[in-house]
């Protein structure tokens, strides 16, 4: 259940930003979660709700921006969407493909008061 630590990390980034930018309340938060990041989006939203109680982000809408997994084939050089890190190239069937996207976990943007 490392989604709890990830949610605490999100809250820390928000609190650091509040210190920097001087806002008191977060209304919406947009978070990019890659398909291959190892984080379950629904569990993260649930944990975020729990860890933000009593904080400036309490009650904020938690918007997850899903990012598909992306790989580049060593054989044919083409890119494929990946559901898992071990998926074969969709064009020529070669394995493994190099993961080039979809591992990110980023706080993108906040709507604040």
């Amino acid at each position, binding site marked *: 259940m490392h989604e709890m630590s990830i949610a605490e990390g999100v809250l820390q980034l928000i609190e650091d930003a509040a210190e920097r930018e001087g806002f008191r309340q977060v209304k919406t938060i947009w978070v990019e979660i890659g398909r291959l990041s190892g984080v379950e989006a629904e569990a993260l939203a649930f944990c975020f709700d729990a860890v933000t109680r009593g904080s400036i982000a309490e009650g904020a809408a938690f918007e997850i921006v899903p990012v598909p997994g992306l790989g580049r084939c060593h054989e044919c050089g083409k890119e494929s969407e990946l559901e898992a890190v071990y998926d074969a190239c969709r064009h020529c069937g070669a*394995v493994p493909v190099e993961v080039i996207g979809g591992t990110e976990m980023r706080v993108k943007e906040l*709507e*604040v008061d």
Partner: protein
Amino acid sequence: MCTTCGCGHGETRIEGDALHSHDHDHEHEHVHADGTRHVHSHSHDGGDSHDHAHAHDHSHGHAYRPAHSHAPGMAKGRMVQIEQDILAKNDAYARQNREQFARRGIFALNLVSSPGSGKTTLLCKTIEALAGRKPVAVIEGDQQTSQDAERIRATGAPAIQINTGKGCHLDAHMVGHAFGQLPLQDDSLLMIENVGNLVCPASFDLGEAHKVVILSVTEGEDKPIKYPDMFAAAKLMLLNKCDLLPYLSFDVDAAIAFARRVNPNIEVIRTSATSGAGMDDWLAWIEKGAAAARK
């Protein structure tokens, strides 16, 4: 709250003491992704008695969206761009640990596996085999008890126990604190035994040189594709308890093929802590890495 770095680390304990009760001299500062450094002191301990009044309606169709949608006519707030990695803080601590290890010639390994793979036994045998050749110290991670650290200390090696409470993994911040309390010579080997869990520790860099994943042959050979993140993150897979192979239907070649499907570069050594098989290869692998890390 921690007096050195302002962390409020919940249930984490090192050698039975909460992180904040130690007045040790391990330096720590918060480094943000944008490069600013400071010591700050917020805590997250206000949640228990707080009266949580707003209602959550999870019954609509948006799985990822708690229903805090704005009331009609509510003014749109100011937008603040963040664009920061969520694990940036952990990664900054990991970087500090890594720099410290490099300065002191320490070769650090992060041992990861499911519970019951034989990590601690393998570790004890490894320490015994290295006695007189290489100083070893151990950071032990478990949710509860200090039994593993006691087993390690019985071999003569210094060990520090981190109890993560409900936590399912070690993070770089805990390891930095534990490292500061560990009497460790320069040019040592530091073994960090993570919480037994094939999922969560994959995401948290501790500052180690490599992750070493231990898969015992009493588990399923398809674990590498069931838990691919961990095998993708590891440099070496130890296939442990190999002395039991005659009694099992475990397919070694299939297990290695699954691991290589996830991570084509993963190295594999077959070991048995009980019979000693493969231990020479494992020790040679350690010594090669340690020689490269030496000051």
